[in-house]
């Protein structure tokens, strides 16, 4: 599929940024709800807290590579912090706050799981107490982090929706679509995939997991359909972009990887799990992997199908 505007680097950044924010959200919600403390070990919060920061940093580095000028003259990036009329400035500030918060949460979660780390640190940093009120600290960190994670997930969509030269992107529904996809992929990576591989019992701990997945997938289908409908109704380049995705060069990827693998397949699996009354680990892993891969392709298709206003 020909990339007209931005390419894979931006698509991967949007994917990692959204998924990192989503993983943080899932972990933070489990933390704040107290669900984390119902088990001796909660792999979902550990992986969610542990991967959100690194994923977003990797995505941001890719973005700097895409910018080009950011590599040649990195000091110019500083100027982007004060260009208040640009949505990128808002994004940079959100990321600048969220990345440290995500790392702090990750470190706290690891230290909570491994108390020996604090003991080891106390050898060098003698002012540290024998124990830390992890739950109380994480409550504060998660509360702030949830807002920043929502901002990050929304921002990845806002970044595209403000580009008026690309009619396909220029719609307020795009941030909504990216937010839903961020939560969906974040949950799939941390809970369905990683946590279930480590602890196959994980899906059983979340009785309403199939319902949540069905709701998210259903919502994503509706928003995606509305997004395509609105774009098609706009006509011109927006309609041509939609045709490119649905019937053109991107159609195979869309119908097989996004609609089939990322939406219908996990939807069927979760409906099956709901009807069966239990959510097996195989179902979880398969559905999770499908949602993650499809999440990448959703962003890639939307990025690559951009046809700018012709002059």
């Amino acid at each position, binding site marked *: *599929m020909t990339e007209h505007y931005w390419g*894979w680097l931006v698509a991967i950044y949007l*994917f990692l940024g959204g998924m990192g924010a989503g993983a943080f959200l899932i972990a933070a919600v489990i933390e704040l709800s107290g669900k984390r403390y119902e088990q001796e070990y909660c*792999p979902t919060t550990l992986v969610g807290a542990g991967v959100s920061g690194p*994923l977003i940093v990797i995505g941001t580095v890719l973005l700097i590579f895409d910018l080009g000028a950011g590599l040649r003259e990195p000091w110019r990036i500083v100027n982007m912090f004060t260009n208040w009329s640009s949505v990128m400035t808002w994004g940079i500030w959100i990321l600048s706050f969220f990345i440290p918060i995500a790392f702090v949460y990750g470190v706290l979660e690891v230290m909570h799981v491994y108390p020996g780390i604090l003991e080891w640190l106390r050898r060098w940093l003698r002012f540290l107490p024998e124990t830390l009120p992890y739950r109380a600290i994480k409550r504060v960190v998660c509360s702030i982090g949830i807002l920043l994670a929502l901002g990050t997930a929304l921002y990845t969509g806002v970044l595209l929706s403000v580009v008026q030269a690309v009619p396909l992107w220029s719609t307020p529904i795009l941030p909504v679509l990216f937010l839903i996809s961020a939560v969906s992929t974040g949950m799939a990576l941390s809970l369905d995939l990683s946590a279930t591989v480590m602890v196959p*019992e994980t899906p059983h701990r979340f009785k309403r997991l199939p319902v949540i997945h069905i709701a998210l997938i259903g919502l994503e289908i509706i928003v995606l359909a509305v997004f395509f409908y609105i774009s098609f109704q706009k006509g011109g380049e927006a309609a041509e972009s939609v045709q490119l995705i649905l019937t*053109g060069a991107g159609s195979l990827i869309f119908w097989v990887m996004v609609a089939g693998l990322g939406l219908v397949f996990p939807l069927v699996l979760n409906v099956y799990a709901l009807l069966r009354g239990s959510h097996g680990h195989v179902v979880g892993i398969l559905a999770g992997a499908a949602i993650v891969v499809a999440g*990448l392709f959703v962003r890639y298709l939307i990025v690559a199908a951009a046809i700018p206003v012709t002059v």
Partner: protein
Amino acid sequence: MSQKQKSKGISKWPQWTIIPLGLGFAMLAIVLGLLLESAAVAVTPEHATPTPTMPTIAYSEGISEGCHNCHFTLSALEASADDPSDAAMYLIEADSIATPHGKLGCLACHGGHGEAADKETAHEGLIADMSAQDPENCVICHQDMPNEFPNDRLRLPHGEIIERVMQGEPCDVHCSDCHGGVGHGFDLVSGDKFCSMTVCLDCHVERNLAIQMADCDACHLAPHTEAIPLACNDCHRSTEAWQGVDASVHPVALEGKHAETACFACHQYPNFVGLSDTCSDCHESNHTEWDAEDCAACHDPSDGWVFAASGWEGHAELWDQYKGQHLKVSCNGCHFMGYDLDPSCTTCHQVPTSHDDGRAENDCTVCHQADQPWDANAPEG
């Protein structure tokens, strides 16, 4: 954690390994995505690209050397020109192309063949004014030109022109009409050069554009807003026609208090309508009996409107005693009851009792003249 349960099925791997595992899954998904996309492209039949990609302006600095060889030196131009007397018209100052547009290279805007050895080939497909011939090439970069420039208090039709260009509609206003040779050192945006309003107006008149010349607000942002005061000739120096509205020809001399007053304290915003040049349009007269239309007959605005002695020359025709000491008397010294005044001496002067001997029956001027000592002609000497 009172309800803590012993987890079942926990992997034998250390718990921390779930973090690299999660990162690994994310990276695996990306690798899988890249591979699957390549595979999908390979098996998808070719589709015609719905629309062409954004056209680009070729960066042609490197292949414009041939242009420089001739156009930077007059002698080279004269040698190759059909008419050497016209050669100077095509001379380009080398320094002038050091602008952002100039750095794009001659060919980026003017086409032609910069590497050609002969003049004819070099000028094949030459474009004199890209903004007239291919305005979309300007709009590629300049889609977001603002319509209002608050610092310059100007309103410009950028949006409408760009919209027309983008829609492929005819537009007889070109970027170069205002911005001139942007690649040749003419840079209005820098503020180094002042663009006379004559440039705008001449073009509007020539094209018979609908913008009303009298409607300042059509092009100027709040031209007469008192909060941001401008001197009249900040704007009205621009054209010969507008120079007529100069403070020096103001119907009322702008001196004294008038020179300190804001325009719209007297005039109606924005078109200066509703005001004649009579004092009573603005000032309320305290004089109930006198004509309030000509305050300056008695008052001197250059001296703070202090009450002035009358200098009306008509007095002498109406009254033969308007001379001598009478000239020093202020207007209301006599006209305290209005202009309709009996010129008899007794209107102001009382006849002394010494004249009860019969002299009071005579006209005072028989013996006394205002421009002579009081007793100069007195019978008693």
